[in-house]
C-alpha cells in the first residue's frame, strides 16, 4: 500500500523583490562599466600605437634613420640623435645602477630602523618628486654654470642619474624584499658573513626582478626630455656627429622631436616629428618586451624557478 503524501511542503523561495532586482541590475551595470573602463585603457594604447604607425611609417627610411639633421632644408635624418640617445642612456646607467644598487642593498639589508634610514628614505622620496625640468635647471646651475662644462653629454647623464636614482633604488629594494628570509638564514647558518650572504645568495635570487626594473627605467631614460634641454643641449656635436667625447653637446631623439616642432624652421617638421615619434614608441615597446624576457631568463638561470 502506497503511502501518499498528503501534505504539500512549500519550497523555500527567495522572493526577488524590487529592491533586490534593482541592486542586481546596478551591480551588473557597474561590472560592465568597470570592464569597459579597463578595456578602454588597452584600446587607448592600441589606438596610440596604430595612429603613430599610421603617421610615421611613411617617414621611416634607411636614409632617415641614419642621415644627419638639417637646419634649414627638408630631408634631414635622425642618425646622430639616435646615437646620442643611446650614448646618454648608457652613460646614465653606468652611474645610476651601481649607486642605486648599493643604496638599495644598504637600506634593505643593512640599515636598522632609525634616524639615518628614515632620512635616506625621505631624501629618496623627495628626489623622486623633483620635476624633470627643475632637475634640468639644477644641472644647468651645477654643470654648465659652475663647472663650466657647457652643454655636455656628461652633464646630461649626471642630471638623469639624479632623476632616476630613486626609482632604481625602489626597484632594488622591492626585488630584495621578495627574497625569502629562509635563504638568508640558511646562508648565515653555514657561516657566511652578511656581505657574502647578500653577494652570493640574495642578489642572485633577486637579479631577475632587478633586471626587469632596470630595463624599464632605461626605457624612460631613453625618452627623457625636460632634464636634458639645459644640460645636454639642443644640438649635435659640431666636430663629428658620432663623437665619443662626453664633453660635447648631445641632442637626443626625444629632444629633437620637441625642438623640431617648436623652434626649428625646416619645412618638413611633420615628417621628422612623425618619424621620430614612431622610433621613440618602437624603442619603448622594445625596452618593455626585453625587460620581461631578460628578467624571466635571469630568474630561471639563477634560481631555477620560472619567474
Amino acid at each position, binding site marked *: 500500500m502506497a503511502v501518499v503524501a498528503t501534505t504539500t511542503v512549500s519550497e523555500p523561495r527567495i522572493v526577488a523583490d524590487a529592491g533586490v532586482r534593482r541592486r542586481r541590475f546596478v551591480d551588473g551595470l557597474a561590472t560592465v562599466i568597470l570592464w569597459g573602463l*579597463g578595456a578602454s585603457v588597452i584600446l587607448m594604447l592600441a589606438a596610440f600605437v596604430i595612429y603613430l604607425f599610421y603617421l610615421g611609417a611613411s617617414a621611416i627610411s634607411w636614409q632617415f634613420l641614419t642621415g644627419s639633421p638639417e637646419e634649414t632644408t627638408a630631408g634631414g635624418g635622425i642618425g646622430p640623435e639616435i646615437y646620442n640617445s643611446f650614448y646618454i642612456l648608457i652613460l646614465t646607467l653606468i652611474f645610476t645602477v651601481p*649607486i642605486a644598487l*648599493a643604496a638599495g642593498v644598504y637600506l634593505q639589508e643593512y640599515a636598522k630602523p632609525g634616524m639615518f634610514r628614515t632620512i635616506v628614505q625621505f631624501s629618496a622620496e*623627495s628626489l623622486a618628486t623633483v*620635476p*624633470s625640468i627643475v632637475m634640468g635647471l639644477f644641472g644647468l646651475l*651645477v654643470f654648465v654654470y659652475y663647472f663650466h662644462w657647457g652643454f655636455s653629454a656628461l652633464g646630461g647623464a649626471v642630471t638623469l642619474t*639624479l632623476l632616476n636614482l630613486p626609482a632604481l633604488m625602489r626597484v632594488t629594494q622591492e626585488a630584495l624584499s621578495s627574497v625569502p628570509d629562509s635563504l638568508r638564514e640558511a646562508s648565515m647558518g653555514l657561516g657566511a658573513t652578511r656581505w657574502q650572504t647578500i653577494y652570493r645568495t640574495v642578489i642572485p635570487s633577486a637579479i631577475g626582478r632587478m633586471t626587469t626594473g632596470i630595463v624599464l627605467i632605461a626605457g624612460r631614460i631613453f625618452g627623457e*626630455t625636460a632634464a636634458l634641454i639645459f644640460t645636454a643641449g639642443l644640438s649635435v656635436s659640431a666636430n663629428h656627429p658620432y663623437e665619443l667625447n662626453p664633453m660635447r653637446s648631445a641632442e637626443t631623439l626625444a629632444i629633437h622631436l620637441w625642438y623640431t616642432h617648436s623652434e626649428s624652421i625646416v619645412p618638413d617638421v611633420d615628417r621628422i616629428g612623425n618619424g621620430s615619434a614612431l622610433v621613440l614608441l618602437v624603442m619603448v615597446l622594445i625596452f618593455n618586451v626585453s625587460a620581461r624576457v631578460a628578467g624571466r631568463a635571469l630568474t630561471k638561470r639563477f634560481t631555477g624557478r620560472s619567474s
Partner: protein
Amino acid sequence: MIAVQAKRSHTIERIAVWVLRAAATFVIVAIAALLIYLCFEGSKTFTVDHLPIWQFLFTSDFDPTANKGGAAIFIVGTIVVTLFALCIGGPFGIAVGAFLSEIAPPRMAGILKPAIEVLVGIPSVVYGWLGLRLLVPFLREHTSSASGFGLAAAGIVLSIMILPTVISLSEDAFRSLPGALREGSMALGSTRWQTIVRVLLPSASSGLSVALILGMARAIGETLAVQMVLGNATQFANGLFAPTAALTTEIVIDMPGATQGSFLEHELFSMALFLLLMAMALILLVRFVLRKRV
C-alpha cells in the same frame, strides 16, 4: 688558515658596509645640494632684484625687461591644468584600479598591466605629439576654441599621463585591504558593487588619496607635453578652451634666452623653486596621510 680567511671576510664585510653606506649618503647629499642651490638661485629675485614676494605670487604683471615679475598667471595655469587632469584622470584611474583589484580575471590583468607599463614608458614628447596631431585638431573642429590649443587640450593629455600612476597606486590600495572586509560585506547581502563603493572605497581612502596626490605631483612637473598643446599665451585662461601658460612651460620657453644674472633668469629660477616647493609639499602631504592611517 681558517682564521686568516675569517679575518679576510671580516675586512671585506667592513668595506662593503662602508661603500653601501656611502651610496645611501649620496642620496641625501644630492637632494640637499639641489634644495640649497635652488633656494639660493631662486631667492635672488627677492634679494638681488628686490621684488616683493607677494608681487611674485599674486600679481600677473609679467614683463622681465621692466623688472616686473608677477608670476600669478603661471602659478594659476599650473594649478588649473593639474586639477583639470586630476578631475578626469583621478576617478578614471581609481575605477580601473578597483577593476584590476576586484573584478579583472588574471587573463585580463595580464594584458592590462603590461599595457599600463607601456603607457608609463611612452615619452612626454610623444604624448605631446599625439596631442598635437589628434586632440588639438579635434578640439579646433568641435569646440569654440579657435586654435584647439589651450587648457582643455593640456588637461586631457595630462590626465592620460597621470593614469598609470593613479591606476597602479589605487590598485595597491584596494589590494592591501583585508579579505575579511569583502567577506563580511558579501555575507550581509551586499552585491560586489555595493561592497566596492560602501566598504572598500572608504577603507582604502588614505591609499587612494596618496594615489591622487602622487598623480598631482606628476602632473605639476610635466613640461613638454603641456608646452606643446597649452598654447603658451601669457594670460589667464578665460574658459576651458583658452590658451594659457604654466610654470614649466614658461621656464622651458624663456630659459634659453635668459642671460646669466639677468632679472629674467632669476625670475625663472624662482618659478622653478616654487615648483619644487609645491612638489615637496605634496610629498609631505603623502607622509601625513599615511601617518594618520596607522
